[in-house]
């Protein structure tokens, strides 16, 4: 974990309410593993007070890229940043996805909404490892989709403006009905109800599944105990999302 002040290289709107933030982070960028996140201090004032966690979208040399949705005060202020502004960043944080698991040959990436954020860095690493990759994206509508740096993409939208009308789990059901990929493993990121449905889907098809969870965080580095995730393990009731996650084996989570 490092703490550095990173200059903003660019901030661009890439879809409806979705922004791509590129930072110059020579210390952090090379260390990031797919599925890890950063805890970003939006500004030096005490409002908003706490840092905001974001998955790493991509890295390219010293460049660190984040993809974010404007949902509240913090992300609103983040969307106002200009080239040259500096952001205090803690990272890389958390446990990455387990990609070098020899037990699978096809990675099935499943993302809902901004859950797409960790998928490009994950895709690149998977392809380097010689894995096959299939990507299932769910979004509200066509305008909010971000499909760059992904491969073999299938889409579902709530309003049917692109791809299947329905949820990403409906899409998954359909795809698997016409043939289960060879030795698959699911990597999913998105809102809690979607992850819950994907976890149930994985159990039904008996497919290994890792999920990347999100929720409120105080510190992002394991010192506040503010981010419990309930486990099925009777001996250990909670894990910390920031330190033991955000990626978890879906079967270990009490949904």
């Amino acid at each position, binding site marked *: *974990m*490092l*703490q550095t002040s990173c200059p903003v290289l660019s901030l661009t709107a890439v879809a409806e309410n979705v922004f791509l933030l590129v930072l110059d982070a020579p210390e952090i960028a090379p260390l990031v593993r797919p599925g890890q996140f950063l805890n970003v*201090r939006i500004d030096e004032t*005490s*409002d*908003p*007070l*706490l*840092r905001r966690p974001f998955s790493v979208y991509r890295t390219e040399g010293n460049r660190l890229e984040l993809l974010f949705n404007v949902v509240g005060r913090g992300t609103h202020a983040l969307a106002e940043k200009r080239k040259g502004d500096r952001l*205090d960043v*803690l990272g890389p944080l958390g446990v990455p996805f387990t990609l070098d698991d020899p037990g699978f040959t096809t990675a099935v990436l499943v993302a809902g909404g901004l859950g797409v954020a960790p998928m490009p860095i994950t895709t690149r690493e998977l392809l380097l490892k010689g894995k096959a990759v299939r990507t299932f994206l769910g979004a509200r509508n066509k305008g909010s989709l971000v499909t760059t740096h992904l491969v073999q993409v299938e889409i579902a939208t709530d309003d049917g403006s692109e791809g299947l009308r329905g949820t990403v789990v409906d899409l998954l059901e359909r795809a698997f009905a016409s043939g289960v990929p060879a030795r698959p493993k699911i990597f999913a990121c998105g809102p809690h109800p979607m992850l819950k449905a994907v976890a149930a889907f994985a159990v039904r098809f008996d497919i290994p599944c890792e999920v990347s969870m999100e*929720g*409120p*965080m*105080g*510190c992002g*580095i*394991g*010192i*506040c*105990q*503010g*981010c*419990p*995730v*309930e486990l099925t393990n009777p001996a250990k*009731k*909670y894990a910390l999302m920031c330190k033991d996650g955000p990626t978890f084996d879906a079967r270990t989570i009490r949904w």
Partner: protein
Amino acid sequence: MHAQSGGNLIRTSFRLGPVEFKNRVLVASGTFGYGDECVSAVDVNRLGGIVTKSLSLKPREGNPPPRIVETTGGMLNSIGLANIGVHRFVSEKLPFLRTVDTAVIANIAASTIEEYCAVLEILEGEEGIDAYEINVSCPNVREGGLNFGTSCPMTAEITKQLRGRTRRPLIIKLTPNVTHISEFARAVEDAGADAVSVMNTLIGMALDVRTRKPVLSTVTGGLSGPAVKPVALAKVYETARAVKIPVIGIGGITNGRDAIEFLLAGALAIQVGTANFVDPAAGIKVADEMKAYCAEQGIADMGSLVGALDARTGVSVLDSWL
């Protein structure tokens, strides 16, 4: 310890009984883990001291989520004293803490007086602990969950029982959720405490207007962060005027100016809490800024600032009109 700053030698250290603290900034319980989590980002040796997460006899899982919510200029928490328990602390965390060059204060929480004593007695057998801080903001299971810290006799009794079991400095951490914190400070002073920490979190609450539900799983939680600083400062002022034992100021401190305010109001030293979540190096930055203030003001001994506020005489917290 003397620190070179701006060409002046500034004395930043202080003593509490036998313990020498290199500077007046400690990190507050529950906001710095067990001291080993931040080592890759923070040089903990530059802190005056580390106060551990509250330790209970058995490990505690803590409360269900959500445990935290940000509020204007602060946050509410209901962690539920999730901790690894005193035994694992001794075997897994203390070996590291013995290697650091800063004071280590073990914070103790419990749900009965016997449990407070049991935890302290286990720690008494261990080297590497410089002092105890007692978190009395805990529900007393014998009294239907009534907080120990809101009962003056209970707070005094815990102090008395623990005093009889240790010669290490004993610091009682008071809760602000009482009418007159100074009465509690006097009671623990009489019961043999070496110092008081002021303050723990203020009870607060947040609602989600869409769902009409409380945001925290426990409905209410503890408010901390910059939002509580004026309250904490007034509590420190009230306490410092009421007792002779030292007061350690806590509440919303994020920079050197905040810390100096607490010293002026009567605190011997301060603790940085929530600010560690925003910046794990906050404690070190506060210490540096305090030193810079002294250099700028030509102050040779930081201790000369303690209680040195220029207040109108005769007006106290207890009797002033609001």
